[in-house]
């Protein structure tokens, strides 16, 4: 039996995995320097997480969207009142058994104001997405104050 083609097959598999398992991350259109916190919990199980990004639009988008912090849902900017329907849409995409255990990860730039966050929280409450995770970096929380 010839195993001469085995390396080729395995190399093909290797390249497949190398290309596929890169970080799948929607490209950020907002500045996203997260604050630091020390009492953090890891966000296990990526399939149960819905992400909401908040921050100042990056340089290239500032002409169109201004320099005030904005919400990014998937790959586009959104207004506060679209958050609810976004959560419902994302929730509908998940398998039935996960729909009640979803976490909303708020990736908010540290320069953002609480007004926007309060509005988002209100929206989340309205669609009953009560479990939130304020995503942060691990570090001393007092570094935020400087």
């Amino acid at each position, binding site marked *: 039996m010839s195993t001469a083609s085995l390396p080729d097959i395995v190399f093909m598999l290797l390249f497949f995995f190398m290309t596929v398992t890169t970080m799948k991350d929607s490209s950020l259109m907002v500045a996203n320097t997260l604050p630091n916190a020390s*009492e953090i919990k890891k966000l296990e199980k990526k399939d149960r997480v819905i992400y909401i990004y908040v921050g100042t639009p990056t340089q290239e988008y500032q002409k169109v969207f201004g320099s005030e912090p904005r919400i990014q849902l998937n790959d586009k900017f959104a207004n506060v009142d679209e958050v609810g329907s976004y959560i419902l849409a994302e929730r509908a995409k998940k398998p039935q058994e996960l729909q009640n255990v979803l976490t909303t990860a708020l990736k908010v*730039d540290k320069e953002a104001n609480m007004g926007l966050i309060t509005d988002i929280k209100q929206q989340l409450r309205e669609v009953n997405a009560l479990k*939130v995770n304020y995503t942060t970096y691990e570090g001393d929380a007092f570094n935020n104050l400087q």
Partner: protein
Amino acid sequence: MPRRKGAPEVNAGSMADIAFLLLIFFLVTTTIETDAGLDRMLPPIEPPEQDVVIKQKNIFTVNINRNGQLLVEDNLMEIKDLREAASAFLENGADGSCTYCKGRKDPSSSDNPSKAIISLKNDRETKYSTYITVQNELVGAYNDLRNREAQRLYGTDFTTMESKYLDPETPSNVRDDLKDKVKRIQDMFPQKLSEAETTTD
């Protein structure tokens, strides 16, 4: 000079092994990085059936203004002192029913940890980073107390126990064992951190 018979043979037998090794290496190392942060529950939008009357002394109010200054129980406070103040409030134990509390039993402060509520309010202009710092300190106050009790009962930190419990790689028999312990500690100091508008009579 003898004619060469084709190209010389290269021994490629180990090629497959090398490739497999690489494959396994990539399979193992390219886990998608996990995020971490502060877990919080938002209050449900429907108000509870009957109005629960909460005594003012059981509520620890924290107000953050637009300049990031703290008003704790109507007194100005530095953020670095918040953790200690919150712990002192939580384990005050004025009614004496909390046997493990080491508080001062001040009658004007909380009755016991299960009644003690921390109410956090903020201004719309408050910076998010300040808010997170305050949240972190309040969660930290709970964690400090829970760690202390976990150390006393089980000789380990609550936070390590909890993260081990939540880690999907922990074997299930260890998890079942941890579940009760984690639950017990959580019940000793239930996290009642309200962000809703709390009104009192």
